[in-house]
């Protein structure tokens, strides 16, 4: 693994190795002084062309907990960069002598372009979300959250509710869960199913409420107003009624099931306000696990870089 651009870059073995390291780093995060000196002198640049709070913070914290220097570079707004500007960015990166780049961009494929251009330079690229394409570290932390609970993926049933069409989280999640041997189901309005839906090899449930008791994990996706989701829906209120998870839905779920959300939650739309108190709702655990997972990914990418020197 030289870069982390897509869940498809990872073998099942890679995924479990990342989990193994993440659990070591979780132990580090719980120490009185939650920092290890392993990456002293290394530098990672985070390039966020799209607004983000938790992902950028999570990556920044992950670097700092490993004693890795981190430079955050943010663009205000979500201006799409032209090809030349991106190439310029690459040239600048090369001059800055850094070890890795974490990039988020509103255009799919930008991290891949960057990785291709940096091929000879021994700089790793982590995709922190590219348009509606993928968000592999989110998929890793989602899978890790499930792994910590069930210790096994075989025959687990996972339901993903919401915007399957535009959600990069859904795309990466589906890939990772299938790779690990889960059965994946999705539920959403027809308008929010992708065109190539049949190829995804997942089952579609128009109405999931009947089957809530069948699932080990339910992932509610965010209604992405910034991606014109609203024009795909008749109304937010209707979405909440049909696809929002409410307290009474929790009663129909398995006692040991998990309820997850990649955040930030639109409370009252995807989830009603009162579900956060339920112990099956692990949204905040996901945030904690995210730091450990990102520590593991950065650590392993840098280790690989030095191993092959």
């Amino acid at each position, binding site marked *: 693994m030289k870069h982390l651009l897509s869940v498809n870059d990872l073998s099942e073995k890679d995924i479990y190795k990342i989990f193994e*390291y993440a659990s070591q780093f979780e132990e580090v995060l719980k120490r009185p002084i939650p920092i290890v000196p392993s990456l002293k002198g290394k530098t990672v640049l985070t390039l966020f062309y799209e607004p983000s709070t938790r992902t950028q913070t999570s990556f920044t914290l992950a670097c700092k907990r490993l004693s890795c220097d981190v430079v955050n570079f943010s663009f205000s707004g979500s201006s799409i960069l032209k090809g030349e500007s991106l190439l310029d960015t690459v040239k600048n990166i090369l001059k800055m002598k850094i070890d890795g780049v974490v990039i988020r961009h509103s255009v799919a494929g930008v991290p891949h372009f960057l990785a291709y251009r940096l091929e000879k330079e021994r700089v790793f690229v982590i995709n922190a979300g590219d348009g509606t394409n993928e968000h592999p570290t989110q998929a890793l932390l989602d899978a890790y959250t499930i792994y910590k609970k069930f210790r096994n993926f075989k025959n687990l049933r996972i339901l993903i509710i919401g915007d399957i069409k535009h959600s990069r989280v859904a795309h990466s999640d589906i890939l990772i869960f299938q790779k690990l041997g889960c059965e994946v189901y999705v539920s959403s309005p027809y308008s929010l199913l992708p065109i190539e839906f049949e190829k995804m090899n997942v089952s579609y449930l128009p109405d999931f409420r009947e089957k809530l008791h069948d699932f080990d994990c339910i992932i509610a996706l965010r209604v992405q107003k910034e991606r014109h989701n609203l024009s795909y829906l008749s109304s937010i209120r209707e979405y909440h009624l049909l696809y929002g998870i409410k307290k009474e839905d929790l009663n129909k779920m398995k006692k040991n099931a998990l309820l997850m959300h990649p955040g930030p939650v639109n409370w009252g739309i995807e989830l009603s306000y009162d579900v956060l108190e339920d112990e099956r709702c692990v949204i905040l655990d996901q945030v904690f696990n995210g730091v450990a997972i990102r520590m593991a990914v950065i650590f392993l990418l840098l*280790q690989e870089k*030095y191993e092959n*020197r």
Partner: protein
Amino acid sequence: MKLKGEREINKKIRNLAQKIYKKHKKNLDALCLIGIKRRGISIAQRLKYELEKFTNIKIPIGALDISFYRDDLQMIALSPIVRGSEINFSIQDKIIILVDDVIYTGRTIRAALSEILDYGRPKKIELLVLVDRNYRELPIQPDYVGFRLKVKKEDLIDVFLKEEDEKEGIYLKRR
């Protein structure tokens, strides 16, 4: 070449346990053992067993994996299995006996000391090694030594213990 066998190792560990007991018998309740993965832990477990013959106090034992404290990533790449540290007790104001199988350059112990200090502020840390071999690269010396060996810089000293390996003994490999 085999230098020491199982009986000699066990006799030495009993001996070292006695020395620790004599030195610390007044504050045994502050005493704890921390082994450096992997063989340091096996030695620490044997010491715990021997020490508890002298007293009813249960001596806490912890495990240290210094992989994340090495001063070079390349070295981590060489030992790809990271097992993680487990210290499930407070080390604040404790007397820690840090245990490893062999001391050579002193860099492992340097890393272990940094890691322990991130867990808290012990009253004192002492170092116990089964084998002290020459060619130190840092000013770190053990307080308790099983065997002192003088070998060439390029020689390898291997300690095998039943808990971790199929055989038991201290071996010298000439290169």
